[in-house]
C-alpha cells in the first residue's frame, strides 16, 4: 500500500517536473525609438537574454545597455555616458509574469495575446509595468513580440535643456524574441 502511494507520488512528481517547460534565448532583439519633429533616434540590441517558465508564466529579460548600437557614434556616447550612465548601471532587466499563461498553449501552433506584468529596471530605477504582447507558435517554434512606451522621467533620466526638443519624453521599446526550449 505504502509502496503504491509512493509510486503514485513519484509519477505525479515526474509529470509535474515534465510539464515545467522552460524556454530561453540569448539572442533577443530589443530596440528603442525616440521620435520628435527635430530628430529620429533609434538603437538596437540583439543580445538580450530571456527565460520563460511556461508552467507558471514567470518571465525575465535582461539586456546590456552598452550593447545598444546607434547610427551615430555621438548619440551612443551621450546615451551611455550622460543619460543611462551605463558604467554605473550596465544592465536593464524585467522580472514578471505572463498573467494569462493558462490561455497560452506553447505546444500548439497559433497566435496568443499575452498580458505581461512585472518590474522593469532601467538606470537603477525599478517600476511596476504592465503591457501586452503576442506569442506566435508556428511549426513548434515560439516567438514573442511586444511594443510599449516608457517615460524617460520615470527612470530618473535627465535630459539637458539644449537637446530637450531632440529627445522624446516617451520612448517606444520593441521586444522581439525567438524562444528555444531549455533542455534540462
Amino acid at each position: 500500500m505504502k509502496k503504491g502511494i509512493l509510486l503514485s507520488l513519484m509519477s505525479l512528481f515526474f509529470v509535474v517536473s515534465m510539464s515545467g517547460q522552460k524556454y530561453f534565448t540569448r539572442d533577443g532583439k530589443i530596440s528603442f525609438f525616440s521620435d520628435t519633429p527635430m530628430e529620429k533616434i533609434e538603437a538596437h540590441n540583439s543580445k538580450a537574454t530571456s527565460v520563460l517558465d511556461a508552467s507558471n508564466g514567470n518571465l525575465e529579460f535582461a539586456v546590456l545597455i552598452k550593447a545598444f548600437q546607434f547610427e551615430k557614434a555621438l548619440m551612443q556616447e551621450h546615451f551611455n555616458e550622460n543619460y543611462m550612465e551605463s558604467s554605473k548601471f550596465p544592465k536593464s532587466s524585467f522580472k514578471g509574469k505572463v498573467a494569462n499563461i493558462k490561455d497560452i498553449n506553447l505546444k500548439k501552433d497559433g497566435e496568443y495575446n499575452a498580458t505581461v506584468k512585472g518590474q522593469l529596471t532601467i538606470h537603477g530605477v525599478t517600476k511596476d509595468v504592465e503591457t501586452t504582447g503576442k506569442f506566435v507558435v508556428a511549426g513548434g517554434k515560439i516567438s514573442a513580440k511586444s511594443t510599449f512606451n516608457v517615460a524617460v522621467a520615470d527612470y530618473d533620466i535627465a535630459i539637458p535643456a539644449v537637446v530637450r526638443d531632440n529627445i522624446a519624453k516617451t520612448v517606444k521599446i520593441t521586444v522581439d524574441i525567438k524562444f528555444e526550449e531549455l533542455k534540462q
Partner: protein
Amino acid sequence: MKKTILIGVLVLGAIGAITAYFMYNKPHKDMEAASADITLEATALFAAFQADEQAANAQYLDKVVQVSGKVKHVTEEDGKISVTLDSGDEMSGVVCQLDDLSTPSRTDFKEGEEVTFKGMCTGVLLDVVLVRCVEVP
C-alpha cells in the same frame, strides 16, 4: 572697425557650425584599426566576471578587449553573426558579436577551432558579451 568685428563673428560662427556638424557626424570607432587595451583568454575573462562582476565591469567595460578561445558555437540572426567562445563553464560563454560596420574577413568559424577576436566589452548576462568584434588573424 565694425566690419572687422562682424566678419570675426561670422567666421567664429562658421567654425562653430562646422565643428558641431563634424562632432554630430563623428564616426564610430574603427574596430579594424583599433588596438587592444587588454588581451587575455576567454576563460580568464569569464572567470573575472564570475569572481567579481563589479570589479570586472570597472576593468573591462568600454575597453577594446582581445580574447582568444575555442569556438563553442556560432549563431546567425538576421545576418548578424555571433561566435561563442568556450569559457570553461557549461552554461555560459564569451559571446563575440561580429562588427556590423566592417566586412569580416571570414565567417566560416568551426566548432572547436581556436580563434582570437577584439571587440568592445559590454558586460555579463548569461555570457560575457563583446560587440563589434573583428577577428585578429
